[in-house]
């Protein structure tokens, strides 16, 4: 028999990179299981395949893609979307109980007690921000004045308040909070503004890799000396690529330590299939999510949506690429559908991304 | 009909001196047949008038020579070189100047620049002198030299159009309704100008006109068209006397 998995991700416009990461992550997991003879569920053995649709990072795109997967292709399991709006849209289509959605949007509204079949397989800002900023406080005690530069999009808008809150709690003062329209490429005015305000920490929040790189470059060129942090949007390689030598000291988080031994097989598989194109964080995340889903389906012994969701919840403790599975979110969202994983703090040292610490939210 | 004598000069074949040979040409726009199998010739330095009512095909003939209107059959030969198949700018470079119907000056560009455009094919050094010459022919243009041509009065625009055509020192000058919208005194003036310049530079003129009186004064001979066919042709005086022609094209009171 055949099991179709759905992928919804931005495959055009700004977010395309992460979209492709998402798609590839799932595909790698699928290749793996098919190579192993397919997914056996009870007596059945399924050949797994994927259908991917572009959501153009938009709500309407999310609706259309989800409708098509569910109504058109009869898909029951969906990976992505990764923009807050499309996720909400897709969930609206899938409700009630038409499909399991393993998404990675940042918006807090993605997880609700009613959404029994919605899971989030990346850490969202509410989870990692306090931990990360706590680390910042520990490592440089004296810094005080923070300036945030974030994209003026769904993610930025829903995440910044959480960040601001986290910074305040950690005893920082958020002096500036700049929201940037998409497609901006000259950030010198903003940076100049930051310098004029004697900012000590520039926080790049969920800026796209490209923007982050540009901000770092332009800030350093204008003689900014302070910290540059990015709590979110892991993409240190691109930042180094764009800012070159000026990226020195840029600090961000990594979901995943591609250098670690557990990672080796995945990295190898990725290289084998996609060559030397940079492998961004969504590859391991979605690869991991797909494997968790397979496990849950196996255990459920069926592809029934409710049964599988139930089994996913029960995966607590199951070994995974990111260590033993932990579900969280009860206290914050009223449901334990947030996959909790450790994350890493990476910094550019002598022009190289280096993992300098490991943090548990 | 005293003047409807096709043989009033030698048949085309015997003439070698001719400047332009318009030979059995038909012009049609899609279904509309504007000119059918028309033949005539122009000799160096002479002036020929094309007269005829609206839609007779006068403009089409000039456009055909310029390679603007497509010709179906026949051929057009200028100084023993075929024109048909050439692009318009190539025709100009062969030595033909064209003042289009309705003036069509470059509205947004100044009078001077219009004239410069007219001199496009001249060797650069010759342009200033030629420009001065043309401005002498039309003092009014000198007054308006730097005004945007679009804001010129109708008549001023007509002068500009003719001046522009003269810039390239053509050996054959095609004028489509040059008196259109000109004040009588100006019509007269233009006539004189054309004669003087012609005398000085010896080019031939093919003029399409509604104002037959004027045209026949200017031209040595005339061709009267009717819906794409040659109706009469002959020496101007003869045509001017012909009752039928008078009635139809010169007007009666």
């Amino acid at each position: 028999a055949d099991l179709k998995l759905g992928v919804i991700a931005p495959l055009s416009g700004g977010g395309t990179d992460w979209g492709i990461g998402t798609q590839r992550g799932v595909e790698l997991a699928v290749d793996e299981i098919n190579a192993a003879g397919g997914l056996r569920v009870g007596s059945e053995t399924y050949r797994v395949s994927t259908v991917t649709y572009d959501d153009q990072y938009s709500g309407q795109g999310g609706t259309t893609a989800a409708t098509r997967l569910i109504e058109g292709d009869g898909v029951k399991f969906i990976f992505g979307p990764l923009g807050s709006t499309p996720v909400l849209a897709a969930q609206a289509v899938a409700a009630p109980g038409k499909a399991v959605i393993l998404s990675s949007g940042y918006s807090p509204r993605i997880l609700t007690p009613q959404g029994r079949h919605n899971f989030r397989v990346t850490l969202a800002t509410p989870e990692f921000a306090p931990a990360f900023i706590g680390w910042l406080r520990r490592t440089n005690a004296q810094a005080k004045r923070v300036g945030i530069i974030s994209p003026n999009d769904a993610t930025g808008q829903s995440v910044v308040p959480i960040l601001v809150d986290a910074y305040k709690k950690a005893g920082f003062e958020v002096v500036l909070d700049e929201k940037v329209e998409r497609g901006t490429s000259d950030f010198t005015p903003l940076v100049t503004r930051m310098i004029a305000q004697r900012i000590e920490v520039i926080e790049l929040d969920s800026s796209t890799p490209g923007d982050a790189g540009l901000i770092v470059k332009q800030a350093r060129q204008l003689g900014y000396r302070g910290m540059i942090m990015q709590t979110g949007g892991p993409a240190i390689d691109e930042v180094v690529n764009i800012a070159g030598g000026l990226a020195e000291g840029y600090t961000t988080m990594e979901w995943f330590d591609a250098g670690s031994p557990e990672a080796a097989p995945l990295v190898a598989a990725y290289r084998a299939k996609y060559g030397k194109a940079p492998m961004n964080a969504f590859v391991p995340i979605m690869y991991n999510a797909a494997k968790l889903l397979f496990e849950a389906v196996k255990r459920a012994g069926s592809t029934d949506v409710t049964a599988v969701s139930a089994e996913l919840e029960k995966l607590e403790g199951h070994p995974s690429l990111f260590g033993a599975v932990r579900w969280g979110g009860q206290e914050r969202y009223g449901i334990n559908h947030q996959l909790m994983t450790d994350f890493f703090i990476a910094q550019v040292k002598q022009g190289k991304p280096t993992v300098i610490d490991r943090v548990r939210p | 009909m005293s003047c409807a004598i096709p043989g009033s000069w030698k048949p085309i074949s015997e003439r070698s001196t001719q400047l332009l040979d318009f030979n059995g040409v038909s012009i049609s726009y899609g279904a509309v047949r504007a000119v059918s199998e028309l033949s005539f010739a122009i000799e160096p330095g002479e002036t020929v008038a094309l007269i005829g009512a609206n839609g007779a095909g006068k403009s089409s003939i000039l456009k055909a020579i310029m390679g603007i209107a497509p010709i179906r059959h026949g051929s057009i030969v200028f100084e023993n070189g075929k024109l048909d198949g050439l692009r318009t700018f190539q025709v100009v470079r062969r030595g033909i100047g064209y003042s289009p119907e309705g003036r069509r000056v470059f509205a947004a560009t100044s009078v001077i620049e219009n004239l410069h455009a007219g001199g496009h094919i001249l060797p650069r050094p010759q342009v200033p002198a030629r420009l001065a010459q043309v401005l002498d022919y039309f003092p009014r243009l000198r007054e308006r030299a730097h005004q945007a041509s679009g804001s010129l009065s109708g008549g001023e625009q007509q002068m500009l159009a003719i001046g522009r055509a003269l810039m390239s020192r053509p050996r054959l000058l095609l004028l489509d309704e040059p008196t259109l919208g000109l004040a009588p005194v100006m019509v007269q003036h233009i006539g004189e100008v054309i004669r003087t310049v012609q005398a000085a530079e010896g080019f031939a003129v093919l003029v399409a006109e509604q104002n037959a009186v004027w045209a026949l004064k200017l031209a040595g001979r005339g061709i009267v068209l009717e819906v794409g066919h040659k109706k009469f042709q002959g020496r101007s005086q003869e045509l001017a006397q012909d009752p039928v022609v008078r009635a139809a094209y010169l007007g009666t009171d």
Partner: protein
Amino acid sequence: MALLLDSDDAPSARWRPLARWAAWAAAAAALLAFPLAAGGFLTHTATLVLLTVIGAAGFHLILRVGLVSLGHAAFAGIGGYTSVILMMTFGLPWIVCFVAGGVSAAALALLVGPIVLRLKGVYFVLITFTFGEILRLIFNDWQSMTGGANGISHIPPPWPALMDTRAYYYLALFAAGAAILFCARLLASDFGRKMDAIRESESLAEANGIPVFAVKVIVFAIGCTLAGLQGSLQAHFIRLISPLAYSFQESLNFLVMNVVGGSNSLVGPIVGTVFLVALPEFLRGWVEYQFIIYGVILVVVMAALPGGLVELWQRACRWITSLSTRSGR
């Protein structure tokens, strides 16, 4: 029907009345039967097409007086947000919100129309572009009211029965039908002829006693109203509204639909919309190359059919008539 369409806009005008009636009947039947035959997703797409047609028709009207408004999508946004907010925050019945959606767009158009319509050609394009982007920014930044970039989700359908896509299809079909008939009549009426006159030569139209400016304002308002109504219907169909859907690129899409379909008859935007909403579906096979192909198709269509896709149809008609006349003798 024959009366309603006594205009240059009916490509079928050349036909004998009987054939015309038959064609209309067939078309109507096909449209009514569609959801029964097609699956959920196709119906979903078809509904989108129908809704988009409303806005595209509005754009067409404005185009017919020689103006391109890159703020069109933003007016759809005005309609959408108005109706959604009225319904979700003030709990008003849908029909009220729907009407309000149209009215608000109209009101805004009447407000800015007299100002922006002082500009012509590309200048008008720029000012509408700018105005539209400002609206988009407002949608995007006024978080307390519009939910910001996240927009507003879980929008209730007009009434519960319309949760079902098929049901909504019929609502959309009705709305689109009404809009098209209205536009067809408008263009066929004297007012329509005035519009065309203005497009050809404003000064001459003015001299012929046509109040050029007033006509433009009215047309702009009507066009924007249609956009507003589409916005409202679409928001309640997608059940989610967010600023991205109202950027100038969306307005540009309206332009593409009109020109690709054929910009000098109302059939154009209809054909264009169907084509451009359906096209990506056919291209989905080649995920990587779909956009390249899409772009190439735009070029090819424009090169082969300067008058837009309707030209195909017209050529076909001419061919048929030529056949029949030939066989006649």
